[in-house]
């Protein structure tokens, strides 16, 4: 039994292999993009709106509200990244009800890729908003002695992201596979339903954690800058008092 869909080679050509992870990823991408394109090509701006458009609007506005709830000031800035994380993971997990389907999120390569994207997105958003100096200064806060611990924290949480998603999805798939061989009727169905719920929750957790990391980084640095400005102003007042 293959634990990871990476090992399921669908096509091989001159050393380049097309495994199930990439193939099902493309399938999920095609489903998302084509579905979005079909629905948004007939968008209505009036009072009469189709059900599919309502569904998309609910999803997009829900993601945007979640981003705003986490504490981001401009949700539209993070919407493509966080929204795509959630939609991709959720779709990839929900499609497990299809027979023969292997979720790409059950591959550590996929979850690692997504975690690396988050690892890169945090500094990218922070630097874009606050600048490179402010971002690098954050690693030596509150003292330069904390630099190694900050680095470890950065990488460990990325690793935790990847492992969490991979473990949950992979375990669900493995458990269903085992139960099919043991009790092929009732329990696999229940575990499949549980797997749908778990996959949706994992998509939500992954997206929200990514947003929390980004928001905490930008907010912490913004608070630090505010404290620096307050210190400078109080210092100026003290000098004026003297």
């Amino acid at each position, binding site marked *: 039994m293959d634990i990871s869909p*990476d090992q399921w080679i669908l096509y091989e050509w001159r050393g380049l292999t097309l495994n199930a992870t990439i193939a099902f990823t493309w399938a999920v*991408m095609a489903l998302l993009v084509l579905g979005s394109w079909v629905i*948004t090509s007939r968008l209505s701006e009036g009072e009469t709106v189709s059900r599919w*458009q309502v569904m998309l609007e609910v999803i997009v506005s829900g993601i945007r509200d979640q981003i705003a709830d986490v504490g981001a000031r401009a949700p539209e800035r993070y919407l*493509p990244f966080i*929204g*795509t994380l959630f939609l991709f993971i959720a779709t990839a997990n929900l499609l497990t009800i299809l027979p023969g389907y292997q979720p790409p999120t059950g591959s550590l*390569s*996929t979850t690692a*890729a997504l975690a690396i994207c988050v690892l890169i997105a945090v500094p990218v958003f922070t630097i874009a908003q606050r600048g490179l100096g402010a971002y690098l200064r954050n690693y030596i806060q509150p003292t330069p002695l904390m630099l190694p611990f900050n680095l470890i924290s950065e990488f460990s949480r990325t690793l935790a992201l990847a492992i969490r998603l991979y473990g949950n999805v992979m375990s669900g798939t493995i458990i269903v596979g085992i139960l099919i061989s043991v009790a092929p009727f009732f329990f696999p169905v229940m575990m499949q339903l549980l797997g749908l719920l778990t996959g949706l929750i994992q998509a939500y957790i992954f997206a929200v954690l990514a947003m929390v990391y980004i928001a905490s980084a930008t907010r912490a640095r913004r608070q630090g800058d505010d404290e620096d400005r307050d210190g400078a102003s109080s210092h100026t007042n003290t000098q004026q008092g003297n």
Partner: protein
Amino acid sequence: MQIDWLTVAAQIVNFLILIWLLQRFLYKPITRAMARREERIEERLADARAARKDAEDEAQAWRDRQQALEERKDEILQEARRDADALRDRLEAEIRRQMEHQRDVFAEHLNDERSVVEQALRKRMARHVLKAMRRIVADFADTELQAQLASRFAHRVETLDDGQRKRLADAAGRTHDPVLVETGVELPAPARSRITRAIHDSIADGIKVDYRTVEDVLMGIRITIGDQIVEWSAGEYLDRVETIVAESLELASHGPDGQARERSHA
């Protein structure tokens, strides 16, 4: 648990492509449509708020106006009552004045009618009185009386003034007809002789005299010479009396009314 780094790289690329595609086909169109719909809803809400404010302002204005009207209602009612009372008084005065005028006119017409009736009544009474007198005179006019009347008439002819006598003489000269003597009753021969002699002596000597009896000569004698007529009779007296009575009645009926009319006009 192993990581295929080639797959990792491919998945990173896939994920970035997916971000771009979803941004292109999902997030932008959806957020744009939602924003436009929100703008339209906001515009409609703003229009609705403005319309509601206008309606409330107008309703408040109407309420103020209604309150003002309520406050002025008693004043308007009192004013209307005063106007109605004034109009009623004016109409009553007008009707009273018209009624008085009509009553005056009616009284005037009544007086006129009464005067006419009284006058007619008086004339009729006078006519009846004179008629009775004529009948009395006619009843008492016998031959003997006629003889005395003839004697009286002869005396009168004899005592005619010069002017009248000359006119009669001229008339006798112009005509060839005989002198016509008319009496109410047949005259006796001596009376006729007396009259003939008086005519011959006073008017025309030798002229022929004819005698005739007519009913309209009442208790008297009428002499016709050509176009001249001399009459002396009780009927002539009665005619004069009737004329005097008629003139007196006329004066009595018109005199006081004329004074009354002058007073009413004053």
